[in-house]
């Protein structure tokens, strides 16, 4: 499947989970494909990085569910920030652990999970729909009942995958990509390289086989598909290009880098990074 085919299966109004973390192993080729469609009015669920920034800048987000958005080496995501400051979308701002337990609830077909987080903070003030639950046991402690974050679709990027949807990460952290796929009705996995199933366990031991095919809908071979975020050990974050992204006005950035297909993007990046 191609990135554009995956994007064509998405629809306006969907709840979309995006894997990775900050500016690390984000499924950027899929986000770029999404930006080439007219799909909008999205609820985006993400440990936010430039995925959130780009979709916000392009006006595709109706509601964001997040604990933060950052570019890591550039602490504040500029387009997320600008969009928030003009009140461009609805925000469900929750804690990182609440977010994780919301995905766990969805993956386990539970309506909520009790979480010791949120109480006492303004997360409760800005999310008046959040409910608490008291332990039925002797301790009697009160917790936040974090609602399931069920997703219509998940987009994630890994290092390797086979055609059946078994996905492998080779970097230091799986982030929550498996959980995003388990919490979603459909999951689209892009990877640096599609390999034969028999080769998966040759490059790294079986615990690196993060994604199981039964929760994966489609596999896309997208070399450089996390660019400009990191996808170690295949490549580190492209700090120079990330800086270009962060400092270029969005219409200019979009016109220069996002007006064509993925190949055009990669050529434009190459041209911008090492001009002849």
């Amino acid at each position, binding site marked *: 499947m191609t990135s554009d085919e995956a994007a064509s299966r998405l629809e306006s109004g969907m709840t979309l989970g995006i894997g990775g973390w900050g500016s690390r192993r984000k499924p950027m080729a899929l986000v770029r494909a999404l930006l080439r469609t007219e799909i909008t009015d999205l609820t985006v669920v993400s440990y936010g990085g430039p995925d959130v920034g780009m979709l916000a800048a392009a006006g595709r987000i109706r509601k964001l569910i997040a*604990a933060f958005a950052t570019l890591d080496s550039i602490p*504040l995501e500029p387009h997320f920030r600008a969009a*928030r400051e003009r009140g461009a979308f609805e925000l469900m701002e929750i804690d*990182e652990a609440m977010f994780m337990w919301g995905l766990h609830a969805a993956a386990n077909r539970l309506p909520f999970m009790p979480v010791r*987080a949120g109480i006492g903070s303004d997360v409760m003030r800005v999310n008046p729909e959040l409910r608490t639950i008291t332990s039925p046991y002797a301790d009697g402690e009160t917790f936040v009942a974090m609602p399931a974050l069920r997703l219509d679709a998940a987009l994630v990027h890994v290092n390797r995958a086979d055609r059946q949807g078994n996905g492998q990460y080779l970097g230091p952290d799986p982030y929550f990509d498996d959980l995003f796929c388990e919490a979603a009705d459909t999951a689209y996995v892009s990877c640096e390289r599609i390999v034969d199933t028999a080769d998966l366990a040759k490059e790294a031991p079986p615990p690196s086989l993060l994604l199981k095919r039964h929760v994966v809908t489609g596999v896309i071979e997208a070399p450089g598909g996390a660019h400009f975020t990191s996808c170690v050990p295949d490549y580190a974050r492209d700090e120079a290009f990330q800086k270009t992204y962060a400092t270029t006005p969005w219409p200019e950035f979009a016109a220069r880098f996002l007006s064509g297909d993925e190949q055009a993007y990669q050529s434009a990046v190459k041209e911008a990074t090492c001009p002849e």
Partner: protein
Amino acid sequence: MSGVSRAEYCVIACAETWRDAGEILASPMGLIPSIGARLARHTFSPDLLLTDGEALLVTPDGTVEGWLPYRQHLTLVTGGRRHVMMGASQIDRYGNQNISCIGDWTKPKRQLLGVRGAPVNTLNNPTSYWIPKHSRRVFVEKADMVCGVGYDHALDARHHRIPRVVSDLGVFDFTTPDRSMRLASLHPEVTVDQVKEATAFAVTIPDDVPYTRDPTPAELHLIREVIDPRNTRIREVEA
């Protein structure tokens, strides 16, 4: 002791955060807390666990001793075996911390990072703060968006604890009857008036305020020659 910079006193004050902490994860955020945590690990808290800033647990010389991806890190937080030192864009008299946004949350004047893990940190493991530039903009009467929970909001949350706040002016704690902020020590050459001027709320000033302790010669050697030979610490606190 002469010749010790303000940044080095801040390192000592941060390192003291992890004294007698035992075999827990030290999670310093910021340059000076990171130097402080490594100093503590090198000297009086040799059992501390440290990360490389991502998913690996490393010894002071960088040797990998373990794996701590985010999912396990969050369990370590809720298990309580961690003492984090976070930053703050705002912190108020009860230790409520804000890193989310300035102004009205619905349409902020200035969007910052977001709440991140501050709510879960403060309800589960000891949480201290590091403020490299003590000012009225940071030490505010009331935090605009409570991310890290302070003593007035935590009520009797069973694992809530804010051991200390370290700034470039001094060290603060919450050992007052109403758990509001108190000046615990001044860095040498700082005056009580400087602290009062740079703080937007009335911080409790004890009758007798000690100075932050001097580094030992061995600690100074570690800071200057081993942990931070390139003197990155002056990027956070000058001189």
